């Protein structure tokens, strides 16, 4: 791309003045008159039969307009919640996820009834009067329990809890392992996490009878998907449904799901003939909004004495929760990049989906890629340790070096220079000095650890990310018009063409490329019109700095604004349509593969097990950068979410009742400003070749790289005690217990 003034510039986000002055427009800020407030009655049990629902008292409560149960919704909603096809599954139980439970509930938080009342508090009051008689059943709440022989099943009447069991692979894994000098094996937990967007989900929905129209405001990442799913469920034509995602207070994957509440609120509006509003409370969010991760990896890595990796075997268990969720194919997607940054062709990856009586799991920031990276980066450190090699040396030895690279599954990595990113990270962190200092401090009994991670990601198949700014930068640059004269609209199906939404770090790679291509189409048409007006041949017209002129006569120029005006007048070239606009649907020919290297330094207190982050260096490569400030911000946030997983966050269920033990933010530790170290973010630039911007996604990079960098550092710190591995979160409690065990 040509040297430019706007693309690559640190331009302030245009969405911010509103947001810093309290003039954001989130769904809960809408206060339509005559709206009914919905309260959802949810099962408090992990697994239970519903024997009776008594609405007598609740119906009499003040302000109540209606109470609906499964039977009422059957009139409006067809079928069950859709599920994206996960990749071919050897065994898949066709378990439907009903919009609302009828006879049996299978996770705490599953909806059994909906109250509509005039006020929010009145709805809550009435909800507490709905009497549901449950017969609790024994729940299964984790993978080990669910796959054990003779374990209870998560649904009545299914033979076992296996949702899918599929193996993919490439190369000759058997031969690779036979040839190996060393094989390391490790079980790695990816604990269950709450995504916790600071704004929970929220809806306002209005059905208009006679016209048969539905308008929904939803805090969602995927308004067009919501519209499509509402059509499928209600039969209302897509052209009659408008879905608007106004300001969205964070998503991290948790808002790509099309949830029961969206269907039920739409149906409730149709049933009641009135607008319906629902705003999720936080403790409700923790049971009702999907969870992330919840996986176990059993890995085996085969290597030669010199550190050359030969083969890799993985069994991934995915706790699907009570139902296989809408986009749960992301949950097994670790298989796609199992071998990470390494040139390793002999790979076998088995994925097993396991049903449990817990909130369904689905994509959470990184979605499969942090899990894949964690497994291979832990594996390679274990091999290095077994062979007495430096973790840097073994990585360099095995990096994929030639691009485009075809991986074990046939996916093509576009571009990369992994050594460059690692080298830069090591330089910034002053790695050799760190190792020397570590040795000295170890002699004094201090537990210092240095952790590395080299990450790659596949993206292009992705709120609050600054689209309004980056998209405007691209358009203004290409159209040669002032940045301030551009306006970006997204999130409203009423005035934007179909798009998949924002997830998987795809917005810039896909949406940004479409903006670029549309802008180019506009320039092409404008150039033809300018040639006509300037009475010149098309090829003689130059477009520069937002002006069109005939070669050699820059004084007689037409601006883009003049051309735009002329495009609506009568003096057009023969055959040209009025107007100056373009629409582009961009589907990238191939995926883009950002990468990077992170270095983390920790100190572990041998007395308390507390892990203190001392230093964090992130070097990431997302190709050409449109706005470095936004890229940096995405990395910061991602790194901290990964640190949260590594050290603090964990969703826990009670085994007896299937209820959350971490049911509020009091029991679930979201990192605050106090837990986070200073960190250094840097970049290398290796442009993508799969989209015209040369850009790659960055929204998930930090999360992918950081949890494992921290854990590798903690493991490194504990090495003198003979400890090889620790699972997440490495809380002081868990570390302390390991230290005690090791001392025995």
């Amino acid at each position, binding site marked *: 791309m040509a040297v430019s003034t706007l693309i690559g510039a640190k331009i*302030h*986000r245009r*969405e*911010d*003045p*509103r*947001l*810093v*002055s*309290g*003039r*954001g427009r*989130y769904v*809960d*800020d809408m*206060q339509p008159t005559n709206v009914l407030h919905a309260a959802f009655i949810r099962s408090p049990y992990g697994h239970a039969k519903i024997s009776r629902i008594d609405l007598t008292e609740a119906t009499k409560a003040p302000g109540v307009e209606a109470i609906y149960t499964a039977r009422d919704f059957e009139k409006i909603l067809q079928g069950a919640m859709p599920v994206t096809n996960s990749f071919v599954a050897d065994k898949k139980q066709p378990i439907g996820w009903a919009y609302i439970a009828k006879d049996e509930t299978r996770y705490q938080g599953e909806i059994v009834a909906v109250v509509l009342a005039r006020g*929010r*508090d009145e709805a809550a009051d009435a909800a507490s009067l709905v009497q549901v008689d449950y017969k609790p059943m024994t729940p299964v709440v984790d993978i080990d329990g669910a796959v054990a022989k003779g374990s209870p099943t998560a649904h009545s009447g299914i033979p076992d809890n296996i949702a899918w069991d599929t193996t993919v692979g490439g190369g000759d894994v058997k031969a690779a392992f036979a040839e190996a000098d060393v094989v390391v094996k490790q079980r790695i937990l990816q604990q269950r996490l709450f995504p*916790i*967007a*600071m*704004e*929970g989900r929220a809806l306002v929905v209005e059905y208009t009878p006679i016209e048969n129209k539905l308008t929904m405001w939803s805090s969602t990442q995927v308004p067009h998907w919501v519209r499509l799913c509402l059509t499928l469920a209600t039969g209302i034509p897509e052209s009659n449904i408008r879905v608007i995602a106004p*300001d*969205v*207070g*964070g998503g*991290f994957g948790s808002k790509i799901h099309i949830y029961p509440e969206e269907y039920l609120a739409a149906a409730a509006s149709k049933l009641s003939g009135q607008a319906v509003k629902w705003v999720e*409370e*936080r*403790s409700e969010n923790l049971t009702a909004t999907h969870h992330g991760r919840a996986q176990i990896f059993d890995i085996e890595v085969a290597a030669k004495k010199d550190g050359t990796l030969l083969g890799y075997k993985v069994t991934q268990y995915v706790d699907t929760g009570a139902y296989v969720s809408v986009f749960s194919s992301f949950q097994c997607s670790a298989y796609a990049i199992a071998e990470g940054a390494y040139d390793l062709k002999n790979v076998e990856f088995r994925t097993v989906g396991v049903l449990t009586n817990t909130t369904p799991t689905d994509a959470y920031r990184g979605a499969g890629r942090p899990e894949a990276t964690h497994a291979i980066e832990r594996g390679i450190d274990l091999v290095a340790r077994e062979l007495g090699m430096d973790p840097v040396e073994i990585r360099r030895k095995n990096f994929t070096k030639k691009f485009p690279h075809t991986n074990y599954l046939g996916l093509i990595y576009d571009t990369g220079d992994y050594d460059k990113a690692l080298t830069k990270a090591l330089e*910034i962190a002053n790695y050799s000095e760190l190792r020397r200092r570590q040795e000295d401090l170890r002699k004094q009994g201090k537990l210092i650890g240095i952790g590395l991670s080299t990450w790659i990601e596949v993206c292009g198949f992705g*709120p*609050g*990310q*600054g689209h309004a700014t980056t998209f405007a930068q691209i358009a203004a640059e290409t159209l040669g018009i002032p940045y301030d004269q551009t306006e970006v609209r997204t999130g409203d199906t009423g005035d934007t063409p179909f798009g998949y939404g924002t997830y998987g770090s795809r917005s810039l790679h896909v949406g940004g490329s479409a903006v670029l291509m549309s802008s180019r189409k506009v320039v092409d048409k404008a150039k033809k019109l300018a040639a006509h007006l300037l009475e010149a041949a098309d090829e003689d017209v130059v477009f520069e700095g937002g002006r069109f002129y005939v070669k050699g006569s820059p004084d007689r120029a037409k601006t883009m604004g003049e051309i735009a005006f002329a495009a609506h007048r009568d003096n057009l070239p023969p055959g040209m349509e009025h107007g100056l606009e373009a629409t582009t649907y961009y589907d990238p020919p191939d995926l883009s593969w950002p990468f990077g290297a992170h270095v983390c330094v920790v100190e572990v207190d041998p007395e308390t097990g507390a892990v203190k982050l001392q230093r964090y260096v992130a070097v990431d490569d997302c190709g050409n950068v449109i706005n470095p*400030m*936004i890229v*940096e*911000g*995405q990395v*910061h*946030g*991602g*790194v*901290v*979410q990964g640190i949260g997983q590594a050290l603090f966050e964990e969703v826990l269920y009670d085994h007896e009742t299937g209820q959350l033990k971490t049911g*509020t*933010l*009091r029991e679930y530790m*979201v990192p*605050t*400003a*106090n837990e*986070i170290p*200073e*960190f*250094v973010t840097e970049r290398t630039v290796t442009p993508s070749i799969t989209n015209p911007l040369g850009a790659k996604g960055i929204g998930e990079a*930090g999360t992918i790289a950081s949890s494992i960098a921290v854990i590798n550092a903690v493991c490194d710190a504990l090495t003198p005690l003979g400890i090889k591995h620790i699972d997440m979160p490495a809380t002081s409690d868990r570390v302390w217990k390991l230290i005690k065990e090791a001392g025995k």
Partner: protein
Amino acid sequence: MSHKVVTTVNGRRYEHEVEPRLLLVHHLRDNLGLTGTHIGCDTTQCGACTILLDGQAVKSCNLFAVQAEGRSLTTIEGMAKDGQLHPIQQAFWDEHGLQCGYCTPGFIMAAAYLLAENPNPTEDDIRRGFEGNLCRCTGYVNIIKAVQTAARTMGGAEAKPATQAAERRA
């Protein structure tokens, strides 16, 4: 049974009849239409609803509306004056101290209190000052920078430039 509540919010007097159980944050949002104050949890962990009550930062989800009787309140809507952003708001914008923006009003109000109490906070002071506020997007890095920048523009002469401090560490 309802109670009369008279408050001065952002310099303007309001009089309402409210239910005793009404939370202050709902009063601000529903009755006064000041929707810039957000709700991010139900256990006073997140701080998105932080406002100033007689100059002191409080979580407005943790007070009843009736407890604000006769008091003077400042919400995020009261920070900008004469069409100009408050220096703290400007600094959040300049330093990219926000992404989705949902937690931002709470952080800005907490920062306003922090800087009123301590015009020259150290980085640690700032981190501690935000122990009651959660942000899931920014990783806090640029929020801390924003407060350092605001401290400088508001005249806290000894405040260290954020970027220099970061570079020194690097």
